[in-house]
C-alpha cells in the first residue's frame, strides 16, 4: 500500500478546507487536501445569497460589529458562544478584503466599492455578494489561489475511510483512490476535517448529493464528539418539487411569501421582520400554513417576485429565475415560484473551540459546516455560513500552524490495516443488504420524525429505527466487485457515515426537552433557559449515543424573548 507523509492532511476541498490549506501551506508546512470530488464540485459552490461582513467605511453608518454579533446571538436563540460570534463579526471585513485581493468579483456600488444588501435577521444590511452565485465565485477564487501554492498536493476523487490514531494522537488517515480502488495511507501530525454537511440523510434537502456527513461519521467512530447535533436547519424556500434552493436573496430583494388565499402570512408570525425573519421561524410558519390547509395542492406556498420587475430580477436574482424556469416551469417575472421548506444546514458538528481545535484527540481540527464552533447556536442566519468557512478556516489554519510547530511526527500505524479490511469487507461479502434500501428508509425516517416539528413519540421511533438500520448495515454488501471507480462501494461507505450521524441527531433531539431555534418540540413548545441553556455533547458508544453537556459561553448578551 502506498504511504505518504505530510505535516497536515485536510479532509475536504471546499471553502473551509482550502482557506486552512492556504494558511498552513503559506506558513511553510506541507499540506494534502483530500476530497471525494474535484474541489470546485464541493458544496460551497452551491451557496447563493452572499457573505455577511461589517466593513468599516463601507457599511450602514449606524452599524457596528456589536450589532452584527448581537444579530448572530439572537438569531441562534442564545445557544451561540458569544466570544465565537464576536470573533466572526470582528474578522468579517478582513476576510472580504482578502477574498477581494485574491480576485473575487463582488458586485459593486457605482463608485467601485463592494455592494451590500439585507439578509434575514440582520439589523443593518451586511451581505456582500456575487450575483446569486456567491459561493461558486468564492470557491473558484480560493481554489485558483491555492493551486498557485507549491506545498499543497491535491488528492482529488479520493474517498477518506477513517482516522489513523495512536492512543489519543492523530496520525493521519486512510483514503481510497476512487479510480483504482487502491488504498493510500496519508500520514500527518495534524488532521483537519472540513468535509461539509449531511443533507442527504433527509428526503428533502437543498444539499448536494455529496453531502453525506462523512466527516461526522469518521469523527464519531474515532471517539470525537459532535456538539449540538439536534439543530438542523430547514430552509424556507426549497423549490417545489425538486428542493433546489431559492436563495434568501429573493426575499432580501423584496420577494413575498403568500398562501393560497394570497395572504402575506408572515405578517402574522413576524410582525416586524415579515418574510425576513430567521429561517427557523419562517420554515415553521410555512409548515403551519400548509398543515392548516392554506398551501397549494401538493403542499407548497408561493414566493412572489413579480412586483420586482423583469430587469431587476435578471440582474440580481438570475439563478432563482433560471432555477424556477428550468426545474419548475415557472416564469418568476409573471408567476409565483412554488416553494416549501427543505433541509439546508447542520448547525451541529465536530466539537471544537474558538480556534477550531477538538480536545478529544491531539492533532484533530474541524472547520466549516463539519465543525460546531457555536457561532450559529440553534439557528444559523443567512450569509453566515460562507463567512464562517473563511473566518474559521483561517483561524483553524493558524491553530494548526501553532500545533505543528510544537509537535513531532511519531512512528505508528496501528489501525491502518483494520480500516482497510473493514472497507473491503463490504465488497467481499456475497449477500446482505444494499445501501439503497437502508438509505431510502433512513431519509424517510429523518424527514418524517426528525424534521421541522418534533415530539417524544416521533423521536423515540426514529432512534429505535435508526438503531435497527445500523445493525442491518453491518450486513451491507456491494454487488459491484470491480476495482475501477466502484461508486457502489463508496455509497456503502457513505451510508455507514450517514447512519452514525443520524443516530446522534435523533438521540440528541429526543434528549433536549425544550424548543430552541430550529429544534421545535410540539410537546415542549417553549425555550427553557433554566434547564437547557447548554450545549449537547454526543459520543458514539456500542449501539448507543452517550450524552454530556458543556456550558454556553456568555460575554455580554443575556437571553431575552426572541421576537422578530
Amino acid at each position: 500500500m502506498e504511504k505518504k507523509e505530510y505535516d497536515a492532511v485536510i479532509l475536504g476541498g471546499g471553502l473551509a478546507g482550502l482557506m486552512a490549506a492556504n494558511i498552513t501551506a503559506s506558513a511553510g508546512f506541507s499540506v494534502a487536501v483530500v476530497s471525494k470530488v474535484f474541489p470546485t464540485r464541493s458544496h460551497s459552490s452551491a451557496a447563493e445569497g452572499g457573505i455577511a461582513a461589517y466593513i468599516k467605511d463601507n457599511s450602514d453608518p449606524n452599524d457596528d460589529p456589536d450589532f452584527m454579533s448581537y444579530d448572530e446571538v439572537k438569531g441562534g436563540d442564545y445557544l451561540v458562544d458569544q466570544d465565537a460570534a464576536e470573533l466572526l463579526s470582528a474578522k468579517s471585513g478582513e476576510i472580504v478584503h482578502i477574498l477581494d485581493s485574491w480576485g473575487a468579483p463582488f458586485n459593486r456600488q457605482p463608485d467601485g466599492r463592494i455592494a451590500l444588501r439585507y439578509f434575514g435577521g440582520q439589523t443593518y444590511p451586511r451581505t456582500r455578494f456575487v450575483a446569486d452565485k456567491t459561493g461558486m465565485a468564492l470557491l473558484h477564487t480560493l481554489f485558483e489561489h491555492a493551486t498557485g501554492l507549491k506545498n499543497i498536493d491535491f488528492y482529488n476523487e479520493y474517498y477518506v475511510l477513517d482516522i489513523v490514531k495512536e492512543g489519543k494522537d492523530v496520525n493521519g488517515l486512510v483514503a481510497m483512490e476512487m479510480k483504482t480502488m487502491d488504498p493510500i495511507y496519508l500520514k500527518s501530525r495534524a488532521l483537519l476535517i472540513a468535509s461539509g454537511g449531511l443533507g442527504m440523510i433527509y428526503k428533502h434537502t437543498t444539499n448536494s448529493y455529496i453531502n453525506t456527513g462523512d466527516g461526522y461519521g469518521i469523527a464519531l467512530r474515532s471517539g470525537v464528539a459532535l456538539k449540538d447535533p439536534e439543530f438542523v436547519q430547514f430552509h424556507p424556500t426549497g423549490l417545489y418539487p425538486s428542493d433546489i434552493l431559492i436563495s434568501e436573496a429573493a426575499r432580501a430583494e423584496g420577494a413575498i411569501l403568500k398562501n393560497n388565499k394570497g395572504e402575506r402570512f408572515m405578517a402574522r408570525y413576524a410582525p416586524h421582520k415579515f418574510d425576513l425573519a430567521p429561517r427557523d421561524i419562517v420554515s415553521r410558519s410555512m409548515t403551519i400554513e400548509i398543515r392548516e390547509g392554506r398551501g397549494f395542492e401538493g403542499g407548497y406556498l408561493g414566493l412572489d417576485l413579480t412586483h420586482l420587475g423583469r430587469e431587476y430580477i435578471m440582474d440580481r436574482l438570475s439563478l432563482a429565475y433560471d432555477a424556477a424556469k428550468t426545474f419548475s416551469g415557472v416564469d418568476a417575472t409573471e408567476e409565483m415560484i412554488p416553494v416549501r421548506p427543505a433541509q439546508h444546514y447542520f448547525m451541529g458538528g465536530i466539537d471544537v473551540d474558538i480556534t477550531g481545535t477538538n480536545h478529544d484527540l491531539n492533532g484533530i481540527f474541524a472547520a466549516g459546516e463539519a465543525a460546531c464552533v457555536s457561532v450559529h447556536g440553534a439557528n444559523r442566519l443567512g450569509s453566515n455560513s460562507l463567512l464562517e468557512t473563511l473566518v474559521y478556516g483561517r483561524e483553524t489554519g493558524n491553530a494548526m500552524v501553532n500545533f505543528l510547530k510544537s509537535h513531532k511526527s511519531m512512528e505508528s500505524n496501528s489501525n491502518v490495516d483494520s480500516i482497510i479490511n473493514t472497507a473491503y469487507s463490504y465488497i467481499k461479502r456475497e449477500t446482505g443488504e444494499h445501501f439503497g434500501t437502508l438509505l431510502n428508509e433512513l431519509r424517510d425516517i429523518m424527514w418524517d420524525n426528525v424534521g421541522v416539528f418534533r415530539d417524544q413519540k416521533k423521536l423515540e421511533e426514529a432512534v429505535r429505527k435508526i438503531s435497527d438500520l445500523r445493525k442491518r448495515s453491518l450486513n451491507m454488501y456491494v454487488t459491484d466487485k470491480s476495482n475501477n471507480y466502484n461508486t457502489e462501494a463508496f455509497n456503502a461507505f457513505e451510508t455507514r457515515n450517514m447512519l452514525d450521524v443520524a443516530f446522534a441527531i435523533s438521540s440528541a433531539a429526543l434528549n433536549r426537552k425544550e424548543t430552541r431555534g430550529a429544534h421545535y418540540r410540539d410537546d415542549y413548545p417553549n425555550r427553557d433557559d433554566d434547564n437547557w441553556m447548554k450545549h449537547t455533547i454526543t459520543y458514539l458508544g456500542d449501539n448507543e449515543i452517550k450524552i454530556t453537556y458543556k456550558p454556553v459561553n456568555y460575554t455580554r448578551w443575556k437571553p431575552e424573548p426572541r421576537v422578530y
Partner: protein
Amino acid sequence: MEEKEITVNIKKYNENDGAFWKSYKVKADRYTQMTEVLRRIKTEQDPSLSYRASCHMAVCGSCAMKINGVPSLACKTMAFKATDEKNEINLESMDYYKEVRDLIPDIDTFYDRMYKALPGLAADEEVIAGKAEQRMLPEEQKEVWQFQGCIYCGLCVSACPSVKEDEKFLGPAAHAKGYRYIADDRDTKKEERINTLMDSAWRCTSCYMCYEVCPQDVQPVIAIKKTKSYLNDYRGPETDVIAMARKHDNAILELINDTGKIKESSLYLKTFGLGEAIKDSVNMLRSGKIKYAFTKDNDVKNINEIKKIMGDKK
C-alpha cells in the same frame, strides 16, 4: 402528479467488459431531473451504475455527459423533455475524454488546460498588505463575472473540434478563464497573460460549438475574440500563428480602408498567401464549393467617409 414510464439507455463501460448498452425503465414526472433519474436507477435497480453528480443546480459542473448525443448537464436536463417519440433517452460519457467507468470520464486534460491559463489574481502589493482597497466599476465587474461563470464542467472542450485537431490550442474554457483575468483591472500581470494566451487564441476557428453547449452561457468564443483584440500588446515569440494573425489583422484594416468591407476571399489570400490558397482551391474544387471563392462583392459607395473614420481610428 402525473407520472409516466420512460426508458433510459446507458452506455456502460468498465475495464473488463469494455463498452456496452444497458436499458432501464424509470417512472418520472414533468419535474424530474436526469440526475434524479440516475439516482433512482442506482438506488433501486443497478447499484453498480457509476456517474458523477453533486449540486443538482448547475453550479458544480459534475454531471456533464452526452444526452441524446448532445453535450449536456444531466441536472439541467428534464427527463420528459429529453425523451424522443419512443419515450427513450440515451446517455453516454462525454466525447474526447478517456473513458474510466460508465458515465465517468477522466477529464484531467481539461484541468491541465485551466491551470495553463494562469488562473488567480495577482493583486497590487499594497492591496495584499491590506494598505489599499481595490475598486472596480460595476460595468467592469459584469465583464469579469461573465467569463468567471465557468463551472469547469468540461463540455466545451469535449465538443470543440479545434481541441481535437490542434494540441497547442488551450480550448474554450481555459480562454474564458484567461480572459476573465485580462479584463480585470485589479490584476498586475496583464502582459504575461496576453503573452501566454495569444498564440492559442488565434488557433480557434470560431465555430461557436462552445457557445452552443455551455450550460452557464459563458460564451468562451467571445472571450477568445476579445483576447485576440490585444494582438498589438503581444510581446511573446513570433510564432507562425502570430505571424498569420498579424497578416490577418493588417488585411482587415487594409480591406476596410480600401473597399469599406471585409471581403472574405481577399482576406483569405492576404492572410494565408498564394500557396495555401492554391492548395485550398483544389480542395474546394473537389467538394464543389469553388464557386464561393468568386462571389461578386462590390465596394462600399461612399468610401471617402470610411477612409475618414479609419483615419480617425489610426
